């Protein structure tokens, strides 16, 4: 195996000249509370007119729900989202029981059931928000189910079989969560990421530059990657070049030789899980001046990328594509993002033989900024089926350890990460969970008009201003930290010392709908 070479040897001279100083981002957890005034809560605390302002509730509450600001006569609105609900009854710090005047009531928030859907349950959204706020696993008292959603299949029916006592006692610091992205041994850099996930491709156009930069900065902090998506490479992204993947998708929007040369990984997007067999969609409303300029397209028209690459109609054509990128950027690793047709295993092996380093399979239930509803639901298989299929086929072909298998399309939590890896992936790509960390409620309104009403997936300057880069970065760093903690916890309980050793360990899991015998 050829030794790693320094950047000076690897980078073409002109790239070195245009290279900008790389920015460092601390991997520090700091509180990043919601940017909204009223956080959505699972329980509501109601203070009746019986309240005599005795202050007892403030004294007993262990979660700082009741606030009485100095200088104010009355108690403020209870901080509902901090309340752990009626289960507090079992403790001696239940305000409802302790209130001498019987002024307090706690009940489930009727709005709680409005939030979320089958895949992203309200618990999952609130737990992700909590993680993004605190950087830690939500306290058990809140009883959030952040392990599964309510989709009734796939990851939501798989469970780890945790032994009562782990077979090997492992300290959290001993657990290795890194993933090697170049397994080919072809002399290109052996890039390792610190966590077994990186950020999915979201173009400028589908999301705001604040969102893109927040993602990039979090990727720097965790020594992992983020992806440009199909909309070109923002100049403001350049201080994070070493943690960016340039995506080359079928529309080739904003792809230039220069943007390919900047980065350590280049990704071919052949298809996307949410709209497999169709090209990227950016509806006209979101094609603003800035977007059209970056994409070198006409302002205000809908930009539909073709499907497929019309220059690629065979694995040999694919190889030609890869050779082209490898030639333009001598240090780049190649990732091939495909969706999950019935013969995804053949595609993966074909792609490996064409010279790719990373096979990225994106399952049918993946996220998107805009996709036809009919495509989201009906085309291509969910990722849970595809991972094992590809993993086993690569192994049978004897190339499993020569290629990195990355799965995406419905990875919502650290548990999903662990399950995907146990099914056979080396790592995962996440997208929607990052958006949720930034405050997404999954209202599905990213595609048209001014875009995301929450200011995440929008290019409207006024809406994008709802979020600041520092806050966004911190939310993502916090979520990443919490996920890593959960993941390390899973590995500890299973007695598996590293993510690499978890790969393909289907024996550590069970499926609730099967006999498991």
């Amino acid at each position, binding site marked *: 195996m050829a030794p790693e070479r320094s950047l000076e040897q690897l980078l073409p001279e002109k790239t070195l000249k245009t290279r900008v100083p790389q920015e460092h981002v601390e991997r520090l957890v700091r509180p990043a509370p919601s940017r*909204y005034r*009223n956080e*959505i809560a699972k329980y509501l605390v109601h203070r009746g007119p019986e309240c005599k302002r005795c202050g007892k509730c403030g004294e007993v509450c262990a979660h700082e729900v009741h606030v009485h600001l100095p200088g104010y006569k009355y108690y403020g*609105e209870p901080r509902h989202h901090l309340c752990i609900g009626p289960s507090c009854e079992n403790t001696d710090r239940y305000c409802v029981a302790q209130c001498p005047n019987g002024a307090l009531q706690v009940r489930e928030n*009727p709005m709680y*059931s*409005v*939030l979320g859907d*089958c895949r992203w349950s309200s618990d999952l959204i609130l737990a992700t928000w909590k993680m993004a706020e605190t950087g830690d696993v939500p306290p058990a008292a809140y009883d959030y189910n952040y392990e599964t959603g*309510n*989709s*009734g*299949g*796939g990851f939501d029916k798989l469970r780890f079989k945790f032994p009562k006592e782990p077979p090997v006692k492992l300290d959290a610091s001993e657990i290795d969560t890194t993933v090697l992205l170049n397994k080919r041994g072809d002399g290109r850099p052996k890039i390792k990421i610190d966590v077994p996930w990186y950020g999915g491709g979201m173009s400028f156009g589908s999301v705001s530059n604040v969102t893109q930069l927040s993602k990039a900065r979090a990727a720097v902090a965790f020594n992992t990657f983020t992806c440009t998506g199909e909309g070109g490479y923002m100049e403001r992204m350049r201080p994070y070049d070493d943690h960016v993947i340039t995506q080359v998708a079928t529309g080739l929007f904003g792809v230039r030789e220069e943007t390919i040369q900047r980065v350590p990984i280049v990704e071919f997007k*052949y*298809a996307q899980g949410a709209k497999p*067999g169709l*090209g990227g*969609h950016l*509806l006209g409303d979101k094609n603003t001046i800035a977007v059209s300029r970056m994409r070198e397209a006409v302002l205000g028209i809908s930009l539909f990328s*073709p*499907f*497929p*690459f*019309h220059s*690629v109609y*065979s694995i040999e054509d694919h190889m030609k594509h890869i050779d082209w990128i490898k030639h333009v950027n001598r240090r780049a690793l190649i990732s091939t993002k495909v969706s999950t*047709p*019935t*013969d995804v295993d053949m*595609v993966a092996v074909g792609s490996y033989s064409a010279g790719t380093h990373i096979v990225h399979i994106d399952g049918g239930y993946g*996220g*998107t*900024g*805009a*996709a*036809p*509803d*009919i495509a989201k*639901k*009906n*085309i*291509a*298989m*969910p990722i*849970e*089926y595809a991972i094992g299929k590809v993993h086993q086929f690569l192994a049978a072909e004897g190339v499993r350890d020569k290629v990195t298998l990355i799965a995406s*399309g419905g990875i919502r939590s650290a548990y999903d990460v662990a399950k995907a890896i146990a099914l056979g992936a080396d790592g995962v790509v996440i997208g929607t969970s990052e958006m949720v960390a930034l405050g997404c*409620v*999954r*209202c599905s*309104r990213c*595609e048209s008009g001014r875009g995301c*009403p929450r200011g995440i997936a929008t290019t409207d300057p006024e*809406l994008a201003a709802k979020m600041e880069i520092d806050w966004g970065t911190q939310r993502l760093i916090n979520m990443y930290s919490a996920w890593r903690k959960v993941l390390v916890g899973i590995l500890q309980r299973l007695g598996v010392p590293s993510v690499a050793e978890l790969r393909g360990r289907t024996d550590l899991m*069970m*499926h609730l709908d*099967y006999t*498991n*015998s």
Partner: protein
Amino acid sequence: MPEKYHIKTKPVPPRRPRIGKHGVVDWREDCARCHNCVKKACVYDRYRQEADYIRSMGEVEALFFDCMGCFSCVQDCTKGLLRLSINPEYERLGNRYWKPDIIKTTWLQAETAKIPVSGAGYRGPFSGHGFDAMWTDMSEIVRPTRDGIHGREYISTSVDIGRKLPFLTQNGNQLPPLVSLPMPLIIDLSSPAHTLPQVDPIVEHAAAATGIIALMDARYRPAKAEHLTNIAFYLSPDSPAVPDELLRKTRLVEIADGPAVAERIQALKRIHPEIVVAIRVELTNAGIGRAIELAGLPDVETIHVVADANGDELNASQPRFLKEMLRQIHTALIEKGGRDEITLMAGGGIALPEHMAKAIICGADLVTINLPLLIALECHLCASCKPGTTCPAKLENIDFSFGVGRMTNLIAAWHDQLIELMGAMGMREARRLRGDVGRAMFFEQLEEETFGKLYGTRTKP
């Protein structure tokens, strides 16, 4: 280049106030009049428009129904007074099969004629009943036979109804008549629970506008004689005879199944040799066997199998779904030989455009629908279309051009979505899609291949 099939559409806004999924519940008692919700929180300007809504009384509900459910106002309200809830009226739409989201998306397509596009990933369950337990396939980089989004103009959705010859001979065959349809869709008779005579002329015009065929009761007389090519009369044993001169102008006719179908077909052919005769077979327990049996008769050209409105087997305690029944019929016909010689139309439970593609993959040549077109007219599927009851969609005084526009829009949207799916599958012809289960993945099979191998026997049906 030959002329392409194209349906002319234009937006047809609803007559009734929209029924949205979300509604804002708003307790004004303690409002601080800060106008956060008006000026900042709601990017859709719903609060700003509120005054206008109130001014034009009767439209007040629109404020609630246009809510997109983004929670911004709820979370930004200075005093935390606003709440979001699911509209109970929305939840009451439809029934257990025709779920509220099906009704809502059908309304949207009937209004805009567009393919519904939204952001964020799929929100629904992992898999489900009937057609939800299968996925269509897509073409990927290693497969050469496909045509992408730019190749759509080359995708043909046309199908032929009638008997096809197994082979041609040199000494000049008498070719049996064929009816060519531009898309694999026929409008079925209205369901008994939703019989509305005033809708029939609308259906007739919508069929003519889209170039497809509508099945009509034998008593029906079209408003325009030239529409007879877009009408197929259904002749049940007790229906009156259709005058021969009318029958001669139609291309397709459907008869009820019965003991003397062969004679019936011959009699119809004597009146109009170029007519294609379809036999309607109800999918009861005996229906599947009967459909297979009919396919073996030399005079039979086309079989129309019909399940109930929810796609279920009729009169069965544990009904099978249309998908399974179709696959059984299709496979049996292949085994017997001669599947290519007859045409199989399937109806019942086709609620969404993907059902059209999926039913074809399962073995139908084309599908028939009725309820989606009724829903296009803003029907709630409350199934109380009787004189004396109040129709929530006010279908008793439906505007003619509104009805035709909405139905045409819906059919156009379905056609576009079929092309979308076929484009993704890499299929250029709807005819070739028939029975091509290789272009689909089935839940049971994927489960077995993935989890069955690892975790034993599946315990859940």
